[in-house]
């Protein structure tokens, strides 16, 4: 077992503990916590399976394993980004509606107050 192998396993475990810690302290809402837990467990499994992955990469014609890992990681990160932009757009839309509703309510409150002060 060489040093690189140990570093990969250690960092994947570290990542898993960070996610578990954040989940325990309620710093992630449930659905995101679950998503990141899944990712970090996959990370740990992959780290332990590194030697087998090497064989797999060679079998499908990739002579340099890290390029396969980079490719997969890149695709995962890209889909996450799109997903987050989608969530962001949804939030923006909701905030816009809320801001408009707050403005309407403020106007109504002002009108009621004016009527009160008159009567």
């Amino acid at each position, binding site marked *: 077992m060489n040093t690189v192998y140990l570093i990969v396993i250690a960092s994947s475990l570290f990542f898993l503990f960070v996610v578990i810690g954040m989940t325990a302290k309620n710093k992630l809402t449930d659905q995101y916590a679950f998503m990141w837990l899944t990712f970090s467990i996959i990370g740990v499994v992959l780290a332990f399976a590194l030697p087998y992955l090497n064989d797999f990469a060679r079998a499908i014609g990739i002579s340099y394993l890290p390029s396969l890992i980079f490719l997969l990681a890149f695709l995962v990160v890209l889909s996450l980004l799109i997903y987050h932009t989608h969530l962001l757009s949804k939030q923006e839309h909701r905030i*816009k509606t809320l*801001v*408009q509703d*707050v*403005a*309407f309510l403020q*106007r109504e409150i002002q009108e009621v107050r004016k009527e009160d002060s008159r009567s």
Partner: protein
Amino acid sequence: MTSKILIIVPAYNEEQAIVGTVQQLEQFDEYDYVVINDGSTDRTKEILEAHNFSHVTLPLNLGIGGAVQTGFRYAERFGYDYAIQLDADGQHDPEDLHHLVAEMKKRDVDMLIGSRFLEKSNYKGSWTRRVGILYFNYLLRLIARVNITDPTSGYRIVNRRVIEWFAKDYPVDYPEVEVIVKLARKGFKVEETKVEMNARQGGASSITPGKSVYYMAKVTFFSLIRSYI
């Protein structure tokens, strides 16, 4: 039966022009108006309150699309038959209001746009603005099959059907051209009529050359994608 007509005045940092514009509007008894103060950072809010002008103040700046949509939601809530959008900076002449309403009722269209270019008027814009307008005119003829000589004009009147539609869905930024495409492609009738436009009374145009490139690209992109897919 008289129809209820609302004038929507979006205002962002318009402390210099707002009093003049609203005082002109208050001379029209037959129309209601509402100023949408889009989270202004200057004294617009205080001025609106001090003069007791009808207004809605957004606690945050939503940008022109969100502000105008607030007006349409207001019109939808309080049962208005027509809504007119009029800029607060004094560029739109309230003298044209009667003309817009009369033409709207006569032609029975869904949206009527006040155009500076149908006949010769006093308006002179920057060359970037004119290039943009020509480009949008061409784009609208191509995609929406309507000939609008002044597609970026913000001076426009819509009927109840469009009010209800806009209350639910309105573009966030640079909405003028995009809504024409959307309405025309949904089968709404969009036409235009001649109006006068003045030079602005205060403040600066929000459209810089860099932004107009973004404006053109954005509208083209969304018009194509949202019309054909």
